[in-house]
């Protein structure tokens, strides 16, 4: 043992002699803080609870993976790396940080403990803690890659039923799924709600000779499934006016099949990436979906019919 370590032990023993018993003095403080923490957690649990989003959907490529908030600083930091290095940095950076932390007691090993007597380590600590806090802040504020869609709860309930009832065993959606029944994306918009509902109640009643079984669904379930099926597909044909409207109002910013500007994203395949409701909401008021969008809102600028027409036109771009 080095002399300063021996001296430390002696000094520490003296400090302990002068000190107080752990119980009840320290235990009281610990218990009080634990109680406060429990109170805060109970409040959060009761008032905010824990969210449960929609059932995992491995085919939904428009979903925004949001990491838990305490990983945000890392994702924010990774943005500073060029694409090819980013993925490597995602592993190497945290690994190096952990090793550095483990090594701290050996790199800063003298007897001096007061933060002002260890200016380098104190500054490093403030820098690191401040950096993590700042990155987390910007991570929380940064826009989502794929803006969250306002989803129609009825559509989502229908989607859940679709998977629970294993409809995909017979039906495909845009080519994915079974081949016994028709592609539902092609059905959407070509049949009325009433037809679909009658069909769900008893397929043979409206489609004689159908091999689809009668499903004994509740009325709400029939409504949900109908909403879901109608949300697929393009909503029906668009008028010859729609492409002209697009050329007049949208091509100043967007590209469509090689024509137009690149201020906004290329929309040549937007129908494959977005559902109709999303596109329509976006045209009417972009800020509702993506708060920092610079695209103007077209509600009021165009009539409701024009917006519907444009929506169908875009939904067709696959």
């Amino acid at each position: 043992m080095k002399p300063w370590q021996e001296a430390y032990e002696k000094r520490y023993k003296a400090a302990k002699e002068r000190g107080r018993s752990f119980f009840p003095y320290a235990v009281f403080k610990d218990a009080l803080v634990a109680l406060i923490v429990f109170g805060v957690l109970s409040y959060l649990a009761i008032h905010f609870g824990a969210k449960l989003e929609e059932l995992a959907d491995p085919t939904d490529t428009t979903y925004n993976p949001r990491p838990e908030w305490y990983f945000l600083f890392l994702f924010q930091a990774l943005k500073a790396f060029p694409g090819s290095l980013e993925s490597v940095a995602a592993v190497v950076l945290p690994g190096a940080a952990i090793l550095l932390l483990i090594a701290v007691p050996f790199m800063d090993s003298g007897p001096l403990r007061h933060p002002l007597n260890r200016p380098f380590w104190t500054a490093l600590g403030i820098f690191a803690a401040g950096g993590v806090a700042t990155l987390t802040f910007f991570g929380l504020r940064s826009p989502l890659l794929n803006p969250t869609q306002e989803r129609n709860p009825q559509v989502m309930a229908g989607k859940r039923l679709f998977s629970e009832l294993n409809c995909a065993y017979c039906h495909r959606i845009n080519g994915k799924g079974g081949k016994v029944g028709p592609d539902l994306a092609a059905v959407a918009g070509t049949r009325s709600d009433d037809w679909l509902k009658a069909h769900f109640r008893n397929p043979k009643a409206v489609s004689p000779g159908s091999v689809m079984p009668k499903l004994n669904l509740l009325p709400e379930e029939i409504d949900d499934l109908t909403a879901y099926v109608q949300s697929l597909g393009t909503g029906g044909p668009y008028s010859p006016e729609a492409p002209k409207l697009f050329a007049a109002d949208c091509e100043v910013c967007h590209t469509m099949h090689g024509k137009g500007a690149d201020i906004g994203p290329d929309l040549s395949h937007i129908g494959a990436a977005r559902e109709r409701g999303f596109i329509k909401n976006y045209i009417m008021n972009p800020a509702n979906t993506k708060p920092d969008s610079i695209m103007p809102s077209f509600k009021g600028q165009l009539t409701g019919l024009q917006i519907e027409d444009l929506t169908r036109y875009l939904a067709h771009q696959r």
Partner: protein
Amino acid sequence: MSASNDGGPRGWLYERTGVDRVWDALFARKVPEAQGWVSWLYTLGSATLFVFVLQAVTGTLLAMNYVPSPDHAYDSVRYINTSVVMGHYLRGLHHWGASAMVVLVGLHMLRTYFMGAYKYPREGTWMIGVLLLVVVIGFGFTGYLLPWDQKAYWATMVGTNIAGQTPFIGPYLKKIFRGGPEMGAATMTRFYALHVLVLPAIVGALIMGHLFLVVWHGISEPPTRAADADAEKEPGR
């Protein structure tokens, strides 16, 4: 024979279990006194411990109604939220407790860092602490998948993809985490086993070691410039 053996039942118990001496060693020991607001910073470790125990209790109760399979996990969590007695509260506590754990571990680490509490003779306490930090993050990562909702699925997709980028061993890591090339039922049982069996065992052992060292060395005294000045006079540093 213990001095407290007066022939009564209490003495009998002490003589056979030694709880009196355990009590003396853990609770009746003297600790250096910190003054004012600084003394409250010393509660952060025990607050972390408290939330950890809370996570263990709420987690056990949740596990009684949870089904770790992609077909049923989502519905069982919904069932917990809507139908289990106090289920909404329990799940809320476990959810917010996870965040509190990260916050408190972070603050506790900052307090020991800035006070130089990792210095001689407490280096081991600190190093076990860093491992605890890693395990706490591991709990968060594995627990996030379990509700099997959109957020769970896609965040884990990203997370396992990142693990796949580790130099050399990445592809194997990814396969081990996912239990195969794709995410699915195997991923879920794997994460569940890690979350409720492997990590609790590791964290239990680490916490025991951490606390043993805290008691063994005694909690560090608040640093002062006077004490540092004294230490500087020692030869041979």
